[in-house]
């Protein structure tokens, strides 16, 4: 017995409501983030990830209030991402009750931001979120590049190189989303996840593409993920967190029940 693999439900939020897009675009309403967080926590979620998907463009106040409300009712770790650009943004989220922040676009614009953030707040609260997309063609060696701004902008940066650099700079964890799989319900990009997991010492959260419970198992056993993140299969109540954990346990994965 030892460290459990984590299940992390993800709340993509827009203007204070949980939404879920397919490939970051078509958006469905899924409810109140505080209610949903509490339900997941009671059902045995190991952490909650809150992504403010419009934060790059809109005001932060709603997000801060929502984070405060979640943090006063949910006593498991809470990661907040979306529009984190300055040390002040990080401090505001930690003060609101977040335990970790997810940094994505700001890291690409200024990689030293990750270094400064880790030095100031500790690596334990710095999650670098990486949106990766396969760029190699059929028959070529696998290659992925990172994208920013919710998947809209290509950067030309190799995903594996990027993740190694971010860990060197102090990232304590990597939230790895496959842009090819996100919202498709066809499972994680296992090759991507495995390559990333093997190239850095820190935990990897697999994200993007979960459509059933076997996908979660595959993410851990084949993708070598330390944690698995999913949104729509939980929001639309196709499965409960408890069912997901029991399924993983039956597949030989250590979980917290």
């Amino acid at each position, binding site marked *: 017995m030892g460290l*459990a693999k984590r299940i992390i439900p993800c709340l993509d939020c827009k203007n204070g409501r949980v939404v879920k897009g397919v490939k970051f675009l078509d958006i469905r309403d899924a409810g109140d983030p505080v209610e949903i967080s509490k339900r997941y926590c009671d059902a045995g979620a190991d952490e909650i990830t809150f992504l403010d998907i419009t934060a790059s463009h809109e005001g932060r106040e709603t997000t801060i209030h929502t984070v405060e409300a979640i943090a006063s009712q949910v*006593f*498991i*770790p809470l990661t907040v991402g979306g529009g984190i650009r300055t040390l002040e943004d990080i401090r505001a989220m930690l*003060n609101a009750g977040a*335990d970790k922040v997810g940094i994505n676009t700001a890291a690409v614009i200024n990689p030293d931001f990750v270094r400064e953030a880790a030095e100031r707040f*500790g690596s*334990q609260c710095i999650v670098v979120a990486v949106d990766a997309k396969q760029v190699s063609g059929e028959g070529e060696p696998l290659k992925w590049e990172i994208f920013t701004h919710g998947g809209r902008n290509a950067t030309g940066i190799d995903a594996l190189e990027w993740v190694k650099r971010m860990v060197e700079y102090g990232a304590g964890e990597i939230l790895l989303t496959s842009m090819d799989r996100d919202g498709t319900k066809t499972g994680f990009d296992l090759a991507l996840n495995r390559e990333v997991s093997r190239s850095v010492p*820190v935990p990897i959260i697999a994200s993007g593409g979960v459509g059933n419970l076997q996908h979660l198992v595959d993410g851990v056993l084949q993708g070598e993920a330390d944690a698995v993140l999913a949104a729509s299969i939980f929001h639309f109540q196709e499965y409960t967190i408890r069912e997901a954990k029991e399924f993983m346990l039956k597949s030989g994965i250590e979980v*917290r029940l």
Partner: protein
Amino acid sequence: MNKIAVIDYGMGNLHSVAKAVEHVGRELGQDVEIVVTPDANLIAKADRVIFPGVGAIRDCMAEILRLDVDQIVADAIKSKPVLAICVGMQALMSSSEENGGVDCLGFLQGDVRYFGDDLKDENDQRLKVPHMGWNQVAQTRPHPLWKDIPDNSRFYFVHSYYVQTQKQEMITGLTHYGTDIVAALGVDNIFATQFHPEKSQKAGLTLLRNFLQWDGTV
């Protein structure tokens, strides 16, 4: 009135601790007053003191010394129940390897070690560092703060450094991650945890509830 002071020296997430204590106080039906403060006078007036800490120990120690928090902690441990959490626990020890070697407060005998870059489990599988997530804690000694918490319950950990001590009698809980690591220490009126009770859902909230009712004796 049960007055709880959370020592605020600018490091990390005190909101979580305060909210969790408020929550268990409400559940207990206790009239709990929580102050999150660096003010020595306010802390001196508290019935119980929480000494938290996250991040890098060098930064924590610098702030502890700058704000005379070392004296505040010294006064607290002379007189009342103290709960130290994560880097708060590490700060109580003699010294740390983190950031190239840092002197800690030296209230408890032991030091703080890095997990290492090639940590492996029994099957020679690589283990990730930081040790992040829910791990089981074996209660090595009975203690009032373990009341109503089943042995081997899972608590939430996040750390790259861990406490080592030759003083076995100080250890109240062990966890395993490549090696045995100290999950909890209990010395007189001090209880210290490497894990985060405020983030450990039911087991953690139970521990905080026990702390609110603890008189500091074992």
